């Protein structure tokens, strides 16, 4: 083996490129991690989405009309797809982090010269990819049941990105906060699931009593679902730009909090 490496400070450009390669590797590892078990991490949620569509679509189709002109199934598809994207984006970063913490292999990513920003970016980006992969699959299997057009593909894409990034960031936050699997499951069952279910996936909030309409407006996930649906049907409860503003602000806030925690070393570098 050859001798010890040099210690002279390398040019800034080389250092930047090394940092970028470090980030890319962490992202790649996170992708590989879910892709190796794609059956559970991608195929299973796609199947769940399909089941929701078949059951709710079957029960409610013909009984409920939304925005006058949409069939219930057509209304339901974008919401279901968004819900599965959000839940899976969250699951990706949070479960990866808690597993690494509990098993101790988190040291492998804490020892290298990765900054907290790179760390955050890699986990969030992987969550986005997982979310989009599930979303694309869910869309593909539900389309035969509810042929729908895409009125504004860019809006749909934008909401998919911002939504999955938000939940990815939330997953990082929950993953560094939780010290046991139970705590994470609690967060998932009592925060993520109820808030995504009550985000207007199964109904338009205009069908709700005034009080619950107001309550729904405090749920950030509602804006993600609503905006994503606008991308398909061109109709929404809230103007898409306003939804994007709310969602973007929520993402910014969440990222700021998470980055501050990462920077402080909270529960990772005690």
């Amino acid at each position, binding site marked *: 083996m050859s001798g010890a490496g040099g*210690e002279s400070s390398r040019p800034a450009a080389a250092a930047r490129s*090394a940092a970028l390669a470090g980030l*890319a590797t962490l992202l790649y590892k996170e992708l590989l991690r879910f892709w190796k078990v794609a059956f559970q991490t991608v195929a299973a949620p796609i199947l769940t989405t399909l089941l929701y569509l078949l059951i709710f679509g079957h029960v409610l189709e013909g009984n409920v009309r939304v925005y006058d002109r949409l069939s219930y199934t057509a209304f339901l598809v974008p919401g279901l797809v968004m819900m599965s994207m959000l839940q899976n984006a969250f699951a990706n970063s949070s479960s990866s982090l808690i597993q690494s913490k509990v098993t101790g292999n988190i040291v*492998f990513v804490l020892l290298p010269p990765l900054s907290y920003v790179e760390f955050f970016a890699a986990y969030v980006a992987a969550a986005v990819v997982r979310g989009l992969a599930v979303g694309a699959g869910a869309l593909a299997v539900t389309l035969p049941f509810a042929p729908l057009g895409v009125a504004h593909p860019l809006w749909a894409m934008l909401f998919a990105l911002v939504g999955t990034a938000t939940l990815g960031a939330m997953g990082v936050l929950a993953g560094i906060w939780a010290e046991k699997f139970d705590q994470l499951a609690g967060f998932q069952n009592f925060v993520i699931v109820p808030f995504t279910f009550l985000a207007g996936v199964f109904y338009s909030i205009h069908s709700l009593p005034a009080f619950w309409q107001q309550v729904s407006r405090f749920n950030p996930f509602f804006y993600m679902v609503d905006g994503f649906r606008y991308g398909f049907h061109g109709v929404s409860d809230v103007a898409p730009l306003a939804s994007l503003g709310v969602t973007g602000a929520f993402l910014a806030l969440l990222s700021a909090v998470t980055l501050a925690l990462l920077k402080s070393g909270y529960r990772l570098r005690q």
Partner: protein
Amino acid sequence: MTAAIEVRGVAKRYGAVQALAGIDLEVRRGEIFGLLGPNGAGKTTLISILAGLARADAGAVRVLGHDVVADYRAARRLLGVVPQELVFDPFFTVRETLALQSGYYGLRDNRAWIGEVMRNLDLTDKADANMRALSGGMKRRVLVAQALVHRPPVIVLDEPTAGVDVELRQGLWQFVRRLNREGHTIVLTTHYLDEAEQLCDRIAMLKGGRIVALDTTANLVRRHHALYLRVRLDGPLPGELAARALDAEGGMHTFRLEDGAGLEPMLAAFRRAGRRTLEVEVARPDLEEVFVQIMRGER
């Protein structure tokens, strides 16, 4: 010359436990440095702070002059750490584990070096085995390999031989010696004091988060003048001497002498009692005895 590792006034508290209570030490370049101490002495805590896995409450640590907090990128690139816990990522094979680890350091195509590290640690056969399928000793070797993927000039091994069989232990120390010959600075912890005695140029002994001894291995052993005299006599020990004997094993009586000057009076005492000495052994205390004495608070 900048020290390989410079620790200045490092303190760390975990709740009610003062894990480190003001540590100052320097590890020189090119040496093998031993960090010894009983369970809970603070060895791993010190290594964690050095590696950026934990933050010191006070004090500073530098790796080859780079502060581990302010200049963490440089410091971490110069450091390879083998953690005490046998951790692994069950999602990956050995080769994937090493390729990923090297990528985290920004090294893009590192296959040749990874191959060499695997060969040196006898991992080539297991390159494509999943980490889960490896025995404990092999997992330990992968941890060592992971610490070396970025060719760090300073290598820290936290109990690398815990739970490792004799053959692998010797192999590992041989490898450590070789890395050291090739210019790497080595810091290690171990509870096998004979190994530490053989390997380390200098040793720091920790107890309750403080350094209680810091010297070259030779000086540490020499510092304890006490000698052990073991004799076989041609008859039973006379009464006054029997009281001074530490034990009598297989007919050999052991006495503790304060120093070399105590030898002659003992032999004279045997002669006075009319005993002939059939066999004599004089032994210096080894590092283990020194360790025990220092930990008891004797000097």
